[in-house]
């Protein structure tokens, strides 16, 4: 009959197992030197003349393969992009649904929408004034007269003809901004605590704002005491964007196009306080109340004029 398990033999065997396991553990643990040696062999195995597990020939082949593979991919990708560009018109993007209705921006723009200065300290407002002057250079009367034509006001300036034909742009002279033109008062009112702010509607190719009725601008306190903003003057006209400046035909053909502006002259704003102001565009097709986009058809900025 087979040997029966005695309790003592089994414990013997148990001990032997333990020993073996200990031995195995010892074998399993590599010293740091071993690891470094292994790494060295991996990086350069002089015996087999292998670098990182491959011979020079093997590396050559694999690199060649990937060179060809990636060159093929790059070629195919370029070809696809080329094909894509062929389908695009250079004058008008295929879709304009994401860029319209138009957004609104202001000048001066010094990274941020808080215009804070102290009348008595010119250094606090000169940057704003410089920004305005710089921006308005393109609107200098002589530049406009030289490059652009006078258009009949009150109607869209539609230019028929082929798409590739160069389009004419209508004059928007700096002088139209009157008190905010910076011609009579080169400080745009900043030195007197009555700052001018220019409002610009984003350009969209082919867009006709207001569908025949000019878009106008109004400004109000965004929240808080209404009396903080007593009066605003709008130039030109009553703060409207004249139809003749639209539609825009795109950078390529409408080279000298200058966006029409509306100047806001804050003649009586509460001083020494942060006054949040929201200016909206009003007109048919204009959207100015989307929560997510606070620059769509409106703009919010803060005036803080110290005396």
């Amino acid at each position, binding site marked *: *009959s*087979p*040997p*029966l*398990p*005695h*309790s003592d*033999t*089994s414990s013997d*065997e*148990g001990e032997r*197992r333990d020993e*073996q396991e200990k031995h195995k553990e010892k074998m399993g643990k590599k010293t740091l030197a071993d690891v470094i040696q292994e790494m060295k062999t991996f990086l350069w195995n002089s015996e087999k003349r292998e670098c990182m597990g491959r011979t020079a020939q093997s590396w050559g*082949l*694999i690199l060649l*393969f*990937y060179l060809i593979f*990636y060159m093929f*991919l790059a070629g*195919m*990708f370029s070809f*696809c*992009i080329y094909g*894509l*560009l062929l389908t*695009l018109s250079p*004058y*008008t*993007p*295929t*879709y*304009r649904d*994401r*860029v319209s209705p*138009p*957004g*609104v*921006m202001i000048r001066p*723009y010094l*990274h*941020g*929408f808080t215009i804070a200065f102290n009348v008595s300290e010119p250094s606090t407002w000169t940057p704003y004034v410089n920004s305005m002057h710089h921006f308005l250079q393109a609107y200098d009367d002589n530049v406009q007269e030289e490059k652009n034509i006078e258009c009949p006001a009150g109607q869209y300036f539609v230019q028929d003809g082929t798409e590739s034909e160069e389009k004419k742009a209508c004059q928007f002279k700096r002088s139209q901004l009157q008190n905010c033109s910076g011609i009579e008062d080169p400080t745009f009112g900043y030195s007197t605590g009555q700052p001018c702010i220019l409002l*610009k509607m*984003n*350009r*969209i*190719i082919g867009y006709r704002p207001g569908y025949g009725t000019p878009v106008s601008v109004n400004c109000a306190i965004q929240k808080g005491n209404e009396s903080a903003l007593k009066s605003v003057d709008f130039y030109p006209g009553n703060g409207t964007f004249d139809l003749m400046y639209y539609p*825009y035909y*795109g*950078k*390529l053909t*409408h080279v000298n*196009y200058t966006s029409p502006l509306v100047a806001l002259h804050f003649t009586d704003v509460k001083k020494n306080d942060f006054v949040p102001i929201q200016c909206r565009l009003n007109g048919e097709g204009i959207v100015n109340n*989307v929560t*997510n*986009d*606070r*620059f*769509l058809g409106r*703009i919010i900025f803060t005036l803080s004029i110290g005396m």
Partner: protein
Amino acid sequence: EEKYTTSISKGLTSARAAEILARDGPNALTPPKSTPEIIKFLKQMVGGFSILLWVGALLCWIAFGIQTAQGVASAFDNLYLGVVLALVVILTGIFAYYQEAKSTNIMASFSKMIPQQALVIRDGEKKEVPAEQLVVGDMVEIKGGDRIPADIRLIFAQGCKVDNSSLTGESEPQSRSCDFTHENPLETKNIAFYSTTCLEGTATGMVINTGDHTIIGRIASLASGVGNEKTPIAIEIEHFVHIVAGVAVSIGVLFFIIAVSMKYKVLDSIIFLIGIIVANVPEGLLATVTVSLSLTAKRMAKKNCLVKNLEAVETLGSTSIICSDKTGTLTQNRMTVAHLWFDDQIYSADTSEEQTTQSFDQSSQSWAALSKIVTLCNRAEFKPGQENVPIMKRVVVGDASETALLKFAEVILGDVMGIRKRNRKLAEIPFNSTNKFQLSIHETEDPNDKRFLLVMKGAPERILERCSTIMINGEEQPLDRERAEAFQTAYMELGGLGERVLGFCHLYLPEDEFPDTYPFDTDSMNFPTSNLCFVGLLSMIDPPRSTVPDAVSKCRSAGIKVIMVTGDHPITAKAIAKSVGIISANSETVEDIAKRLNIPVEQVNKQDARAAVINGMELKDMTTEQLDEILINHSEIVFARTSPQQKLIIVEGCQRQDAVVAVTGDGVNDSPALKKADIGIAMGIAGSDAAKNAADMILLDDNFASIVTGVEEGRLIFDNLKKTIAYTLTKNIAELCPFLIYIIASIPLPIGTITILFIDLGTDIIPSVALAYEKAESDIMNRRPRHKKKDRLVNEQLAVYSYLQIGILQSVGAFLAYFTVYAEQGWLPNTLLGLRVNWEDDYYNDIEDSYGQEWTRYQRTYLQWSGYTAFFVSITIQQVADLIIRKTRRNSIFQQGLLRNKVIWVGIFSQIAIALILCYGLGSVTALNFTPLRVQYWFVAMPYAILIWVYDEIRKLFIRQYPGSWWDKNMYY
């Protein structure tokens, strides 16, 4: 017996029993200590990629903290992202925990079998109590068929035999009496052990040990001391996690440094780092792997392999050595008549599982005589009420040989009980080890024949001694030397087949000497027991299962070595090994060669012998090196006469050869070996609870062939996991590239972190699970088992092919879609380059595009989301192609069939449906960063999807055409 304060006749009092019960605890084995649930849960929370994601979440919150302090408007995005990442970790953790708990429950339900009852004498009365409540000192009554409820010292025994096989591995029944015969409790005859079974007879005894104090309990606790080996798939997954985490961290850190040196703000760089981590980590993959494994586990359960531990599914597939038991696993576990010898001729009997007739020549008169002896000289009986049960399945009261003879007779003659009734038994001497024969005297059924028939069976040489004549063709002939030699030859031949041989003889008692009323006395033996007439030999064996030879040859072609480990005699073991193909027909052992060449065993070159039969005694004296040598040199090995303790040594020997070892076992004493093995397989029917506890897998039908099916499933799941991982890794590059290009080329971000999560945990989940349903490729059972250390789940080829080829292809396709969306909205590719800083400037609300149009910040963001959606859709579309190419690694898709795996199509449709829902259904939910996409953008990446498929077909074609070539080595994963 006062030591136990009990009384032999009255037993314990109930009060005293309760007292002892309180002291010793219930009579049950304590289950192995289990880890507390909360620890298990926390382990899931920090395992795998979770750490990386936690770091990502933490970085998000740090970024959020800093940004809020700086008053950045978009700071909350980071808070949300952090929360989402944390949620992802927690959800996948919960999922993995749930899966594990579910599989544990299966096992738990398995071990909760019907509570055992014991008949105990307490307060002077016999009572049925649950076996768990037995205490030391209880008097217990046992009868045939009972499981011994505790370690018991017998006080009264009558024909009691126990089956100790679950304890010692001996398959022979052991008789038990009240005599103290040996110092060692295991050897003495008056102790019956817990968990063994009483085969026949009755006994009364006193409980001396309960629960963990029993011999079995001690062995079981020894088993729990042997450490569990890490499963191969666990190692593989760890390896894979390391690779991916390594790539993620190194790319992350590299680009963090690049970003910082490119004068990005540190905070921005941290946000890039998060993006890179999220893009690189396949969040859904570990959950997918779990699901795939449990699907396979379910499938295996259907095929009678119950898997206790999910990862064991794959372990079985990488098995390179199976150490199999003989009894019950390779064989049918029942003695069956295999050969007959009468009329100087050997006849073979049918030994298959479902025999209904026997086809050998039954016309001889000798057979008639022999069959009569077989029928009458037999004490085994069918349990009543089994008339409709097939003969082979009927339950018999009696020992194994008698059962075999009874069934054999029943199959041929039918209604054995009726024959016995007609031939009334007058006297009987049961088998005992001194006589080595069994004898009975009967009336004959022929009313004209008044003679009595004396029938005898027993050890052939003993029977022959008692005979003077031999029956040939129904005629009694003198038993001369020639006849005796013929007998010897037949006896040796049958014995050489490893069969247990019994001799049969009879004698018609003369009517005149033994009249009707003759008083037969078995003690004084007042009847002849010599000069009998020898009739024939019958040999019995526990025959191999019919499915086993096929399964063994399947193992062989799959490169798996099958080693037989048995407690049986070497000759029997070798015979069975030969008949099932463990030792193939033309291979020889050292001894065979020695015999053939007629030289001493020592002179034989051991390399010449393919097969080896090792005796347990030899094994005992072997050193580790010698054992290793045997395991290496011989491909066909049988270990005979081994004790279960030696099984452990054999397993360890195999594991030293770097083999993945599967071990089968049923006895309690097998449990250390089962634990030590890479995969322990317990027998569902014959297995003891301790073995089932120690095992990783339970064979519900105890059939070796089921192991082979399991191996196939295991290999399949390994292949399929490879495919799943390859599929999942591919798109990680398509998710990562956008970040890298975003940092380097300063383009608007092509895909957002949230969107990436929607791919990883949304569109990609069902397809990657679907790959688990993929059918096997044609070569699955014809290749070698995978090498534990060389054939990794994620090897260099897989990573390189997925990352640097298909992944890059996908990225290019997705970028094409991205550039298309932007270009058609007015942002040409050249404008986009270097645009990032202005693009992301919240104050810059009139950026000019390529056409001179001016965009607000939000308009740009919305366009950016459209870009995300286009990128997402393109990845999804290309993942469909990726899914299809991953169906096979070597065969063409057309060989594999596109429609054979229907679940893949479910995957593809789900993928597209989820993408559609995200794009059009949830496109208005701003937090998700999806926008309704123009229909044509769905098709932009289509050429690249087709390219992926064509390229992969070409790859597979070259692999098939040029095996072993440079291409095969570098492209086959």
